[in-house]
């Protein structure tokens, strides 16, 4: 544990020196500040911010994570010469990436939120924070898996972008396709299941329903609303996010354990 902490500390100070992280923080600062200040009512600002978050966080996390893993390969190899367990090292490197990313996201949205001085939507804001952090955890883990599975940097980076495209854009196309193919059947539950499977969609929908968009959907909306606002919905959604995180982290750990550096 001690070793892990030391590694986290090292990674932390290393990553904090990276200018990309500063740009990432500044980006969120700028976006949320302008949304909270010029966006009119804070609900609308939060919806817009969420739209940015569900696209940007996965993209940055997965690309930054992959790049970072490739760049710290020599460091990892050096450390592995020491009598340190691979598990501790992996967790150290992983957390050392996730924590600064999450912190810079949190700082980027928290400061403007407090500056705006409007705390009416604090619950929704917390939901936004939690979703953002979960997305960071999941997509950084995915980045590590990709980085460990591909030794070729270009291939790995390409694969990372592909995964992002798949989950952020193509997946919704597939959902729409499913809705059309099975339009003669009650597809609501299937669509619900599909959207829970994709963390990006899950974040977006959780947020949409919080803003009562469900009323637009008539019967379907009522069904979704009932599911997502009930305890079962929250349980299932958080379970989905946790399972995604756990699976990817474990997969990364396994790959790291068995990898021949």
């Amino acid at each position, binding site marked *: 544990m001690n070793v892990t902490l030391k590694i986290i500390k090292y990674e932390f100070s290393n990553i904090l020196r990276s200018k990309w992280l500063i740009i990432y923080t500044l980006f969120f600062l700028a976006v949320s500040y302008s949304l909270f200040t010029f966006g009119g009512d804070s609900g609308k600002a939060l919806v817009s911010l969420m739209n940015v978050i569900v696209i940007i966080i996965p993209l940055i996390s997965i690309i930054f994570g992959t790049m970072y893993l490739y760049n710290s390969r020599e460091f990892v190899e050096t450390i592995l010469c020491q009598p340190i367990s691979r598990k501790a090292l992996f967790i150290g490197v992983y957390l050392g990436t996730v924590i600064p990313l999450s912190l810079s996201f949190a700082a980027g949205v928290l400061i403007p939120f407090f500056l705006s001085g409007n705390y009416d939507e604090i619950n929704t804001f917390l939901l936004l924070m939690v979703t953002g952090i979960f997305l960071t955890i999941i997509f950084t883990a995915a980045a590590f898996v990709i980085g460990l599975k591909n030794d070729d940097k270009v291939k790995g980076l390409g694969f990372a972008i592909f995964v992002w495209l798949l989950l952020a854009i193509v997946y*919704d196309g597939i959902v729409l396709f499913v809705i059309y193919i099975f339009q003669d059947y009650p597809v609501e539950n299937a669509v619900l299941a599909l959207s829970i499977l994709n963390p990006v969609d899950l974040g977006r*929908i959780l947020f949409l329903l919080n803003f009562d968009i469900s009323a637009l959907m008539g019967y379907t909306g009522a069904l979704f609303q009932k599911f997502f606002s009930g305890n079962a919905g929250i349980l299932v959604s958080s379970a989905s996010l946790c399972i995604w995180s756990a699976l990817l982290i474990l997969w990364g750990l396994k790959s790291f354990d068995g990898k021949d550096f």
Partner: protein
Amino acid sequence: MNKILNKILVLLILLGGFFILDAREISVSKNGIVKTIKQALQLAENGDVIIIHEGYYAEGNIIVDKSVTLKGVNFPIIDGKGSGEVFTINSDFTSLYGLTIKNAGVSFIAENAAIRLNEVTGCKIIGNRFYNNFFSVYLSKSSNSIIKDNFIKSSGQRETNSGNGIHLWYCKDISIENNYIFGHRDGIYLEFVENAEIKKNYSKNNLRYGLHFMFSDRCVYTSNKFENNGAGVAVMYSKNVEMISNLFYNNWGPASFGILLKDITDSKIEHNRFVKNTSAIYIEGCNRISIKKNNFENNGWAIKLMANSSDNIFRENNFISNSFDLSTNSRSNFNTFEGNYWSEYSGYDLNKDGVGDVPHHPVRLFSIIVEQQQASLILLNSLFIKTLDIAESVIPSLTPEMLIDTKPMMKVLK
């Protein structure tokens, strides 16, 4: 000479008698000579004023068949005790001021009202309070009457056992002004009414519609507020209706509308504000409506326009931050859109005349997808949908090609 004097004297006496008759007041109070309203009505002649002092009066159904004025002092409470009607008015020129009328009975057979005007003319219902009545003010086959400054509140739970706040049936020339109506089935309900003027009313939290009218031609609705009603405002089968400067706010729910228009022709909807309604205006089978200078803000759908509507004109409206500005179920277009401001518009204005140089397509591809597949609304705000919308706006293939605003404004219209 004597004869003439005599005649003048007789005339004077007659006139005097008339004046005395006209000015007669009957006082009703719990510790006075006349203790009940019914008793006062028996004593009264046409034209009398009955003053009802503060107190509690539960007299069952009070039938007014003389042209009297009933005036309350400090809002005396007239209780229907939950059975039958409270005031039934069968005589012309009857007025009621300053009364509190409670508990007209819920019935599945009779439409019991706190005040019912039955085939009368020239009546006034001004400044009364109504609580927990089945129907509050009910006019049937009446004309030239005024309903003003009333506070009407009910706490109906279900549509089936609750009645309307102000209910007009086969009426003419009625003015409904400055009333507050809460918690009824329909706030204001008009059927077969002509020339009514509905002004400055506030209709809120009603179970079904804030305002509901059918077969009511030449009516004018100005400066009313309709807020958080179960299904907003529904107007059907009428001609020459004017709806001006009203506010439609927060009529939000799976089957709610700001205004639902069905078979309305030759009407005006102008200077209204629609904020946070599921569908601000739903238009079906309507012709020649002028929809001008309205503000649509933060609605789910600003306008749902069905294909069986034609020759409607949408001009100088503001469409701001609606999830969908316009949706329709047809690829052709028989309506005119011109000079509106659309917050979704992304064109440019090279000659700086305030009018965008590229026409605006207000129908998004996604709104057509949603029209066909409700479940796909779950994809709202997703990047995939945005990509589709952009592709479609460049080369329209599914959205109505001709439905365009040729002169989209660059700035919000004041």
